[in-house]
């Protein structure tokens, strides 16, 4: 009897501790994900990036913290000024994406983020980087589509990619609209499989569609 109580106690204790950390993890991640949605300034994103990085350093087998850390740095690149600085934020973001892909080489969302990162590179110097990085972005996004054909963000960003490619290169509005349209359907029908799963892009996609493809409806 005594031994059973002790062993039971041990089981309880470990389970308790484990589920506590898991709970902590979920709680803080959900909280930070919410904060991320509200973030606007460089300071907001930097603080969140730091927080996600701390979590990622501890939870080395999860991709969500790495994903959001990278996403924060991509946003930092978007909101900051100066091309060298923007690039250095993207360099940092890339390190998180690389780590995450190493653990989850077939996670569609990570390739979406990779595509977004490349699009960030283009923004810094469209003239010299446009061709090269739009190809790289396209490659990453098609990979994302391959790993999850229902990922709406893959279609949305592919649409953005195509939209910014000149018509002569096979891009432009006409080529982008079907992608925005598919993305819209996927945004409507796809249910996130995890509370921490990315959900962004629906509104922006709607906006792009309305702006560029409105009269076709």
């Amino acid at each position: 009897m005594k031994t059973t109580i002790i062993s039971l106690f041990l089981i309880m204790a470990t389970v308790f501790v484990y589920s506590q950390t898991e709970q902590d993890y979920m709680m803080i991640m959900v909280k930070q994900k919410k904060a991320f949605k509200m973030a606007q300034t460089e300071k907001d994103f930097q603080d969140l990036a730091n927080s996600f990085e701390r979590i990622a350093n501890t939870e080395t087998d999860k991709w969500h913290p790495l994903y959001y850390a990278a996403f924060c740095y991509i946003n930092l690149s978007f909101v900051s000024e100066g091309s060298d600085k923007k690039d250095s934020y993207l360099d940092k973001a890339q390190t998180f994406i690389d780590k995450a892909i190493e653990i989850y080489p077939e996670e569609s969302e990570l390739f979406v983020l990779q595509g977004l990162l490349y699009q960030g590179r283009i923004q810094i110097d469209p003239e010299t980087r446009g061709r090269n990085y739009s190809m790289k972005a396209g490659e990453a996004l098609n990979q994302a589509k391959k790993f999850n054909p229902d990922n709406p963000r893959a279609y949305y960003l592919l649409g953005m990619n195509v939209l910014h490619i000149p018509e002569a290169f096979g891009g432009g509005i006409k080529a982008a609209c079907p992608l925005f349209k598919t993305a819209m359907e996927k945004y409507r029908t796809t249910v996130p499989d995890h509370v921490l799963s990315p959900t962004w892009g629906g509104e922006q996609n709607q906006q792009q569609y309305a702006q560029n493809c409105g009269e076709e409806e």
Partner: protein
Amino acid sequence: MKTNTSLQTNNSTMKVKFIILILFYCQAVFSQTVISGKVTDKKGEPIVGVNIYLKGTYDGASTDADGNYKIKTELQGNQILVVSCIGYKTCEKEMEVTGGSIFLDIVIKESNSQLNAVVITAGSFEASDEKKSVIMKPLDIVTTAGGLADIPSAINTLPGTQMVGEEGKLFVRGGDSYETRTFIDGMIVDKPYESTTPDVPSRGRFSPFLFKGTIFSSGGYSAEYGQALSSALILQTTDLPSESVSGISLMSVGVGASHTQRWQKSSVSVSADYFNLTPYFNLFKQDFDWQEAPKGIGGSLSFRQKTGKDGLIKFYSQVSHGKSKLRYPNYMDVATTNDINLNDDNGYFNATYRDLYGKKWISNGGVSYTFNVDDTKIEQDEIKEKTKSLQFKYNLACLLSEDIKIKFGGDVWNRQFSQDYFDSKRNENFFSDFTDNISSVFVEAEFMINGKFAARVGGRAEYSSLLKESNLSPRISLAYKTGKKSQVSLAYGTFFQSPNDHYLEFNRDLSFEKATHYILNYQIIKNNRTFRIEVFYKDYKNLVKYDSLYLYDPSAYNNFGKGYARGIDIFWRDNSFGNHDYWISYSYIDTKRNYRDYPVSATPTFVSNHNLSVVYKHYISKISSQIGMTYRFASGRTYINPNNPDFLSDKTKAYNDLSFNLSYLTNLWGNFTIVYFSVNNILGLDNVFGYQYSLTPDSNGNYNSFAVTPGAKRFLFLGIFISL
């Protein structure tokens, strides 16, 4: 779930849990520790957004606008505090967490890989997409007007180079063209230029589209590179192409086709091209008397394979055949002419393997092979020159820390040269040849202190089996940041090169030629504007001299030649406008040398004291076109006038050229297409590169001459490049 049910049913465990909870709770109340303080840099400036945390935990904070942080933790005992921020070195500090308040101010050091770290720039210009803060992009080489997508021509708009229109090669800082060596992925290219008949400018053999990075060094380069007195042109080929693509090019001078197939980890590219200037020469009258316009065929095959995580195997090969026939003044008596018939066969192979071992070791190895046969018939005489060149190279780099890198390696270079001369008057063959094995080793260390000071110190040793001689060249480069965006660089080094093939074939007792470089450079890059100024002094020793009357006699050659070059190079580029930009290069040089058959020290014929280039590019997105203009000015060059007893004291008039190009991006039958048009010397100015005098005087004792000019006033080029 299971545990939950058991929890509810098992009372005793519930109690245990309760006790534990209370215990935890109490501990939490009594053991909370607050760590706070300020994070600053060395100057005491607060740093914002620093991530400061206890290793392996969520407990941490970011610094605020004043650099302050506050971490609350319930942990106890020995912990490691980590401080990290972009642009700074991450530091870790062990600390005892005991509860209560801990005040800790932290000073962090700038990381050397940070945005504004110092870089060694003395003597070198770099074009790259991957690195930041480089002065040029690979695309700049393709889109420079007057450059005709030819690497050496585009490099010729940078300071330190000479305008030598009848050669088309790179002449750097008072150096002859053979003093510039071309390297592809670190491997030597023995014949980087196409073979041409006299006074017809040659093009580089390699397409600029093959390369992702170009470093043009006009002096003071790394100990990794040897056998070049003046300059190194270091080309890096592209890695895996991003997608499969086919291309067709239709040009006013020929046609070409290519295909690239990309797989997950490898790719293969093939290309073939044919050029023929006959239709163009028929349409546009040439000043040269072409008996047969230049024509040729060529092909290339390349291969890329990724191995493991970081390994990459690259293979590139190309072969070509070219021919032409020109009726040109006879140097013996320029009133008469000769038919010069040239046949050229060339092949180049390059295979390299790069890999990473751990995070510290970078391994690079490769082999390259060049063969070239130039068969020149001058009327009944014939000269057949064969070159075979094989190089093996291997080097290792070790990143000892973020601040220290050591690189070492070596190469073996086997060269075989032969010349077969058939003298029709004597009906006799003269054959000469040599084989040389040049073995080299080098070691080089790079360090950086605080991102402010950088040094590259190294040395190179070479041994030539033909000369039976070795050399040792120290190389030192230093750089120091003088401001946030500005820096000063210094470079010193000695450089050796084996004498020209045409001297070695008659005399093997010669020594290496030697140059010593001293370079001082200042550079400021601010708001997409670059200003660079460089002064240099170059000392030449052991240059080959000979007596031109006894060319075949070994005793006519010696190493007593010497010379100097000094000057100033200025570069300004304004890239701040977005859709247009321009750069201006200006070089002033003062140089004299006594080499070859010069009777006295004099400024050689390929030198203009002043060289100026203005390159302008404008992208018009409305019509998806880029237009470019290049203006070149070079002051007069010396020429040898046997009627004037003062050697090399005559000068041509100045050279002026305005070139234009247009690239238009469009869609042909659903395929991405670039239409490219260019005109050189749009204003049709008369340019003279020099004067060639008869080697023998006429009956009145006068030496006759003719002006060396471009083959035609203007050159027009139209090309359509379609990607399928």
